[in-house]
């Protein structure tokens, strides 16, 4: 197999997870894509070494680079308000599924906006973990390997994040309930 094909396989295996990690960190899809590109540019430079590693090893290498890049991201990170605006902007227009009634699509879009706003307000560790699970489709063990924390910690963060989101959606579904 030629080297570009091997690298493409590595890229396709990990790009969603790496992008989700940065989306959780920086809050918007395009900035996350820029960071993801930086990570894979380095991977391309070290492709001879990387393509010989097992998938876990590749993920470990990629996320070590990603976490180091995040140090730079943190220095230039937007304010919490900026992140929230970016997330709300990203979720401003989710596309309605084909064949779904307009009213259902509107409700889905509104709920997605509530979810986006609640996620933007989460503590960063919970936000990154939740984004990697929801957008990156990684399980707790994979997220733990990527972030360098035990899987139990990942599950705890996910639990806290989901509880916060459930409360936010509960307020949206029944505003009076939150006032009682």
């Amino acid at each position: 197999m030629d080297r570009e094909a091997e690298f493409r396989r590595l890229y396709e295996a990990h790009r969603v997870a790496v992008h989700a990690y940065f989306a959780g960190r920086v809050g918007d899809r395009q900035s996350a894509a820029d960071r993801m590109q930086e990570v894979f540019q380095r991977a391309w430079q070290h492709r001879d070494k990387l393509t010989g590693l097992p998938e876990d090893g590749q993920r470990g290498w990629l996320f070590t680079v990603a976490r180091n890049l995040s140090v730079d991201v943190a220095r230039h990170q937007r304010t919490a308000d900026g992140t929230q605006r970016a997330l709300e902007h990203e979720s401003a227009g989710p596309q309605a599924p084909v064949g779904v009634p307009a009213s259902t699509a509107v409700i889905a879009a509104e709920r997605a906006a509530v979810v986006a706003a609640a996620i933007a307000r989460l503590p960063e560790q919970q936000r990154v973990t939740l984004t990697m699970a929801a957008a990156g489709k990684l399980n707790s063990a994979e997220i733990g390997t990527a972030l360098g924390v035990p899987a139990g910690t990942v599950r705890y963060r996910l639990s806290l994040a989901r509880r916060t989101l459930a409360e936010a959606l509960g307020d949206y579904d029944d505003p009076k309930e939150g006032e009682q």
Partner: protein
Amino acid sequence: MNLDDDLATWAATVRLPDADAAAIFQRIVAAPPAAVTGAAVAPVAAPPAPAASSAAPQLDPAWWRGFTAGFTSRMVASTAPVRLAA
């Protein structure tokens, strides 16, 4: 809708479209090595650069951070007020 459905809807807005991911891949593999490593420019389909080239020093951000931290420490230390002998 339940929370998982809402999260899935939100995740779809965050996830990078496949077309964008493909464009990024093409940019990465088409970029000349000289842009980052200082090595000689090679065509995309060329054989990999020799080991000596890939091991050449690079402008690694981690190295720069270490250098900057050390330099700053030395600067601060060298400009600290000197206690004069009584």
